[in-house]
């Protein structure tokens, strides 16, 4: 254990990198989820098709390959992202594809009566989504988004492939430098668990906030 303590500085740097990567990709993934998820309801066929292509491409290919591609292949075509940006893009776009299905299914889960009521009130499409469907869908989305957020935290571990020195990579450095196996893994296990617990707590908080005062069918189903 003494030898591990010596490596505290790089463990802290690694932890910060992992948190940065997780939070930034989460923001990107959230934007992508809503954009792609809502595009699936578009009247324009082109937009729907584009959303499906996006979804199937990013969900159907591995995150590792996407990351590798973004970092090592794009520069050959003249597009060079800094490592952290490439990592955020790969994680965010990948998780966003899963998230878009969460958004879509949550909106579909809002009762049919709500759709019809909005139509009866002569709401425009925009108003229907903005004031009726999305607010009721959000409480349904949150638990699944919470799951995805933790999935994202663990996905960031593959970022070491593209020279981002995240927590997992730092533990590999310690392993090779000290030839210890149990201790470095034990330490990062605990660190990952603590970060994940904070994310769970945050999700719970969001859940409570968004279902406050709602007694709709959707909110009760949660």
């Amino acid at each position, binding site marked *: 254990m003494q030898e591990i303590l*010596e*490596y*505290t*500085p*790089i463990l802290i*740097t690694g932890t910060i990198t992992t948190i940065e990567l997780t939070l930034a990709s989460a923001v*990107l993934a959230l*934007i992508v989820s809503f*954009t792609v998820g*809502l*595009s699936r*309801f*578009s*009247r*324009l066929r082109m*937009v729907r098709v584009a959303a499906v292509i996006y979804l199937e491409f990013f969900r159907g290919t591995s995150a590792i390959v996407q990351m*590798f591609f973004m*970092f*090592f*292949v794009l*520069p*050959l075509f003249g*597009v*060079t*992202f*800094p*490592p952290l*940006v490439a990592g955020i*893009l790969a994680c965010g776009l990948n998780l966003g594809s899963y998230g878009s299905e969460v958004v879509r299914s949550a909106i579909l889960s809002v009762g049919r009566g709500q759709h019809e009521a909005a139509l009866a009130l002569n709401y*425009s*499409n*925009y*108003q229907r*989504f903005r004031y009726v469907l999305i607010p009721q869908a959000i409480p349904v989305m949150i638990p699944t988004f919470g799951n995805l957020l933790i999935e994202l935290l663990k996905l960031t571990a593959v970022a*070491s*492939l*593209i*020279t981002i*020195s995240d927590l997992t*990579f730092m533990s*590999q*450095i310690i*392993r*090779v*430098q*000290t*030839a*210890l*196996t149990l201790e470095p893994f034990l330490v990062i296990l605990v660190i990952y668990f603590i970060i994940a617990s904070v994310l769970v707590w945050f999700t719970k908080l969001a859940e409570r906030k968004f279902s406050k005062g709602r007694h709709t069918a959707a909110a009760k189903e949660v």
Partner: protein
Amino acid sequence: MTITKLEKCSRAIALTLFTAGLTMGAVSTVSAGTLDDLREQGYATVAVANEPPYSDIKGDGYVSGAAPDVARAVMKKLGVPELRAKVVGYGAMIPALMARRVDMATSGLYIKPKRCESIIYSEPDLCGAEAFAVKKGNPLNILTYEDIGNNKNVTMTTCAGCAEEAYALERGVSKDQIKIMTDPPSGMKMLQQGRVDVFALSGLGTADLLKKMNDPSLEIVMPVTGVPMGCAGAAFNSDDTAFRAAYDEALAELKASGEFAAIVEPYGFSAAATLAVKRDDFCPGN
């Protein structure tokens, strides 16, 4: 009608993200990596693999070790005062060079014909014998790769794409006798737990690991006869021939002045062995 508002909104978001990404990328585009650029910016970015004693990473992230120390001395001679080491996975070193993510790579990347197709090397800077780690007393009496090839019940481990894997395959070891390890400590664990019989790696890497593990039930076989000495050099993007030529020149001066021996010998490398070989011995015309 209003759904177009949504679409417009989403399109705008996508466009902003895309352009934001592009501009961020454009700002940090790595320079052409020529020596003049490096002199001007005052530092060179170097990919380093995590492999003691070729590279040695301190608790605060500082990178030393035989290979980075040699590179540091050479670059100082060339008028680049600082070396910024970037620790990357072994498999990422060559792609990083090709995509110009780094200006050069160093630390135990052996000069091998296959690699010479994608990158160019300096003259050799670190050479060492090969080694095996086996159970105490070497119960299976494994001294060469041929010994492994002749006994199909023996299994060995080495890293993916490493020189040792090629040595084994060329000497009659079959593919299913080789179990790939993700990193050297994992390979040693496999040996300790009896999942494999032989651990193969560079001599100094093996010795360093055994010393750190301090496990009396293991022992080293060194040198492994019948295989060439492994020689590593600094690696460059294949367009950087002028940079490489300048590097070679400075490295030769370093070798001649005896400074080279002073750097590598404390790490256990033999300067004499390195001085006896040339790049052309491994990759003619690279």
